[in-house]
């Protein structure tokens, strides 16, 4: 089972999850991004940057 890169919590991935889907860690609340599904890779989701939406 994948772990939260921030706190090490076991993360349950929904069966229908998609690449780049965001989901929160149930322990520390960090927003995570599914970087890839095969192999399953999680990372901290990028925070909103200054020029997003500009």
């Amino acid at each position: 089972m994948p772990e939260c890169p921030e706190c090490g919590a076991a993360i349950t991935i929904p069966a229908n999850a998609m690449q780049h889907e965001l989901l929160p860690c149930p322990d520390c609340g960090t927003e995570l991004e599914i970087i890839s599904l095969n192999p399953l890779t999680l990372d901290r989701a990028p925070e909103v940057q200054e020029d997003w939406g500009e």
Partner: protein
Amino acid sequence: MIRVGIVGASGYTGGELLRLLLTHPEIEVVQATSESYIGKFAFQVHPQLRGQTQLRFIGRDALQSCDLLFLALPHGEAQKYIDRYAALAPKIVDLSADFRLRDPAAYASTYGHEHLAPEWLERFVYGLPELTRNSLRSANYASGVGCNATATTLAVYALVKAGMLPPTQPIIADIKVGSSEAGSTPTDSSHHPARSGIVRPFQLTGHRHEAEVRQSLAAAGAYDIRLSVTSVELVRGVSAAIHLSLPIGLSDKDLWSAYRAAWNTEPFVRPVHEKSGLHRHPEPRLLAGTNYADVGWEYDPATGRTVLLSALDNLGKGAAGSAVQCMNLMCGFEETTALTFGGFYP
């Protein structure tokens, strides 16, 4: 079904006990004493119980035998009559400070007088199930817990258990408390114009609960842990911030690992350490009326400076909630029975 009595049921902890016990499917509250309100309905003193019970207060001289007695008396009263209460019930949970400490000398130095029934101290199990669960399962006598002691012990316990916090440094617990800690008897300091809006340093050194915390942690070492208590604008609630140093360079994963090892199987202690949002740390307001204690931390990896956090309801996990949890264990009931209320928000 067991038959339960409450001695000293007109105070705030007595009222909280009644509120919890009236929802408990395995017990019947058959008697509740109050020397000040003999003959009054319990709901006349505890209005939250209106429609819940027609129980009327009796004097302690009218107590009958029952299966278990809760003693919710002012400190010092239970030890005066403990033989008498023990003759009335085979099991006792005492919520006062009278039977929390095992060592008569520690009791005398902490409370300023010799214990009146020192032979009873060893018979009581300290009533914090997170530390003494197995002993409570076979106990006939359980003490209550100090609310500030509980907040402090639970805040540091994960790191103590993990061996990450050896007893090599003074530890300062800065504790903010609500007005219900002072009990239901009005005093000059609880008078509304004097109490409202305060942030009043109450007892910054020499707090009596220090001895309880040291006793609870003694198996892991002789911790020099000091409580500084400040009264704040809360009715219910304890918020503890324990200041200490850890080695530099730890990660949040290291701390999470220790907290999970200590608390993941505990029904009423929850690590709270969120990375975002409003409620990142334990907050007492969210726990009013519950038996939960939330614990957390803030750690600076560059300096090792650490603040361990906890919050609870002083009348709940800090008193009546823990007492009911003890009863559940002592009587073989499911430990969480009558204790799963989750609070309310906002």
